[in-house]
């Protein structure tokens, strides 16, 4: 309540007014507080999701390390989409994938600015013999557009006087637009991309072109284009198509990223299957049966979750190397190293092997909450133990099994340490996280972050989709983490 001034004391009207006053005053504070809380929440959301979102947007750029970082991304400009599709059709008759096929004629325009007092000489245009990217699969032979391309003479199509900003000052001069075409001479294979380099003389400035230059090199003298016939797809998701195209197996030439994704899915599905079947069985036994050594099982569960990966991986590595007591001979191999079986069956760290102790725990907790009546009724009906388990218990356990499926999939998909130990060579045997490390090692040196980011974002997609759809189970997972102790 508001403190009354001396002369208001004892005046009922003033008291009433003061009461109404203070109610409104408090209400305004509540509203303001809600507003501030929402603003803070949005701020937190920006801080926490921001890096991933910014990385996802930057992964579309030719150079994600552009400085200063900006979100003006030419790849997201619809006008460039149309141009890219047209150029793709001109290059290989394919508006989406683009390329360079026999008979192609790709028209291209370049605009340069010549400040007052310089001699407007056309730039030197060539199709360079440039290897796409570096590293993984670089030993393969590929076709170069340079071997089949011919650049026609540059023609001046427009000349206009104007002002242009050069190094922070506006200068008078002439804008000249040149037009030319890149032709496919003779017969040959379909080439994936057509790089282009336009070298100008000192003092001349690249302004614009049909598609914006991928980068300016040598202090802006060389306008370099990675692909002037990209098609819509190769233009907008350039780095993403590179992820699939460029990193290839040295022996088979297959896309490494596809192989890694396939491996990750295989391992995750297998682990989901083993956990759904075996962890639920174990959880059921611990929850329902009294048996000798029950206490020891609890100890084992706890132990499997507590012992560091670094302790168990030493012996497990040796076991896998030696083929798990001859088990590998069933699969026709002497060792489980560099085999997905080794990743699936064995494991290291916080209970992660074929059967995850944490998942046994989830199932045990769940079965303890299930009433026994139905099982007992089934027993009276003459159902055997196994039949009862499959027909009666498991169908009731659907919510818990859902949690096991989701959490196991996410855990296995993201697992890094154990696959890193087991899968070393060749490249195509790896799972996504280990493969991404190879990306980092090979392309990071060259500063080629577009490809690395695109690979990282792609590999995160499945779990993000899973999270958006099955959010409930993830939150249960945290709650479960909270009740583990």
């Amino acid at each position, binding site marked *: 309540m508001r403190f009354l001034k001396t002369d208001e004391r004892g005046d009922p009207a003033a008291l009433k007014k003061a009461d109404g006053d203070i109610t409104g005053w408090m209400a305004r504070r509540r509203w303001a507080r809600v507003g501030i809380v929402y603003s803070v929440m949005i701020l937190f959301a920006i801080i926490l999701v921001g*890096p991933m979102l910014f990385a996802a947007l*930057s992964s579309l750029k030719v150079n994600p390390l552009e400085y200063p*970082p900006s979100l003006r991304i030419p790849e997201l400009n619809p006008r460039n989409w149309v141009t890219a599709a047209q150029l793709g059709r001109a290059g290989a008759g394919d508006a989406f994938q683009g390329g360079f096929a026999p008979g192609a004629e790709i028209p291209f325009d370049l605009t340069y600015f010549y400040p007052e007092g310089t001699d407007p000489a056309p730039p030197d245009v060539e199709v360079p013999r440039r290897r796409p990217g570096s590293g993984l699969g670089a030993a393969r032979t590929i076709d170069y557009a340079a071997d089949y391309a011919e650049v026609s003479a540059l023609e001046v199509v427009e000349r206009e006087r104007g002002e242009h900003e050069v190094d922070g000052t506006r200068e008078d001069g002439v804008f000249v637009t040149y037009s030319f075409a890149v032709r496919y001479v003779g017969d040959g294979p379909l080439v994936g991309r057509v790089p282009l380099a336009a070298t100008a003389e000192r003092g001349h400035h690249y302004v614009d072109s049909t598609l914006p230059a991928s980068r300016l090199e040598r202090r802006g003298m060389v306008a370099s284009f990675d692909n002037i016939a990209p098609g819509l797809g190769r233009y907008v998701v350039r780095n993403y198509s590179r992820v699939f195209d460029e990193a290839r197996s040295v022996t088979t030439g297959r896309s490494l990223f596809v192989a890694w994704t396939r491996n990750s899915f295989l391992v995750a599905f297998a682990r989901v299957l083993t956990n759904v079947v075996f962890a639920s069985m174990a959880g059921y036994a611990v929850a329902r049966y009294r048996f000798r050594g029950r206490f020891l099982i609890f100890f*084992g569960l706890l132990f499997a979750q*507590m012992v560091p990966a670094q302790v168990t991986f030493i012996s497990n590595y040796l076991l896998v190397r030696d083929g798990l007591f001859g088990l590998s001979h069933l699969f026709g191999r002497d060792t489980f190293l560099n085999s997905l079986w080794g990743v699936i069956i064995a494991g290291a760290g916080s209970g992660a*092997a074929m059967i995850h102790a944490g998942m046994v725990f989830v199932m045990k907790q769940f079965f303890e909450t299930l009433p026994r009546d139905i099982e007992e009724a089934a027993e009276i009906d003459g159902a055997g133990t196994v039949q009862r388990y499959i027909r009666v218990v498991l169908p009731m356990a659907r919510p818990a099994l859902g949690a096991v499926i989701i959490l196991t999939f996410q855990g296995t998909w993201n697992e890094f340490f154990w696959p890193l130990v087991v899968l070393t060579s060749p490249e195509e045997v790896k799972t996504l996280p280990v493969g991404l490390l190879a990306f*980092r090692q090979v392309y990071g040196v060259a500063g080629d972050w577009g490809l690395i980011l695109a690979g990282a974002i792609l590999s995160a997609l499945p779990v993000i989709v899973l999270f958006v759809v099955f959010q409930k189970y993830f939150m249960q997972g945290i709650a479960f983490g909270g009740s583990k102790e």
Partner: protein
Amino acid sequence: MDLYGTKYNEEPGGRPGLTFNSLKRSTQEQISAYLFLAPFLITLAVFFLYSTGRAFYFSFTDYNLFADPNWVGLENYLSLFRQSLFLRALQNTLLFSVIVTTVQTFLALVMATVLNQRIRGLAFFRAAYYIPSIASSVVITLIFMWMYQRRGLINYLWTEARRHAPIILLFIALVIVLQVAQVIWERRRGYPARWVDPALFLISFTVGAIGTLGAWVAGVVSVRPLPPVDFTWLATRVRLPGWAPSFLRVPVPLVAIMIQNIFTTIPTMMIMYLAALQGIPPSFYEAADIEGASVPQKFFRITIPSVRPVTFLVVALSLIGTLQMFDQVAIFGDAVPLESVITLSYYVYDRMFPGAQLPQVGLASAAAMFLAILTMLAVLVQRVFIKSEAE
């Protein structure tokens, strides 16, 4: 009890006892139980118990994967402490664990307290905050490595903050002055305004923003023409802070991992705290309000004691996670000097697969055992510590 007053066994898995075939029945149960448990028990025995035992044995031998192991007693444990790389790993691990655990626990609690409001849409925000934690450590580390590049996002934001420092400082000063002036004014009018009054703060914020913008346009303050910050986050051996004694200096690349780790762990912890906070009866705070407690007083006297069990859990999980940190070191890999980021976990891996040299399985096992004991001790110590505070 049933209708006839027979007492049932109340134990889990219990069945009505004292029947003819009770013995047979319990034997049946034993067999079924072990059949159901068999796959799990085999995994547990082979991949956890046997492997731990074997690592324990290896830690007393000179095994190198090729020659037969010879018993060397405690030699491995002793030689660990003579190796500078191990000592560096130990130092890095301890610094990383203590700093990260402290910072992220505190920040998570503060953020949870701010968000602990009964408002609509909380579930949506909670889900959004959780997104950084569901992606793999590899994805997050790669994104952070990209941001840590010399001309990356982090140095850019740093540059911009430095350039705009006069404007930011003016804005903060204006908001504080306006807030203080308004609170004094409201109090003189007889309203019980607090220093952090939300309604007045909104006014201070808006007016402060307009004032700062005006001063900027009028040219009273301006952006400083500073060169871009070129701080090297990764490929550096610099250790900070320079004034600290050598054993407390943290290598810069390790700071980079710390920032990233705090960033990805906070959401999970915050959600755990939020669940605990929502369980505190509002009457506690109302009572404190009547007694005129300040916001910090309420935080330290009510909030922190109420969430102590969660704090124990959060700190335990955080200690286990940070003491065993491996992924980030492996992914940073050759982009940073090894000694700047090496942790105990990575040391074990490095001795096991040392590239061109002969593997030192004995040494690796000894270091792994040391790590396991260190983890256990840390969790025990903090349990005692937090308990004793509660009493």
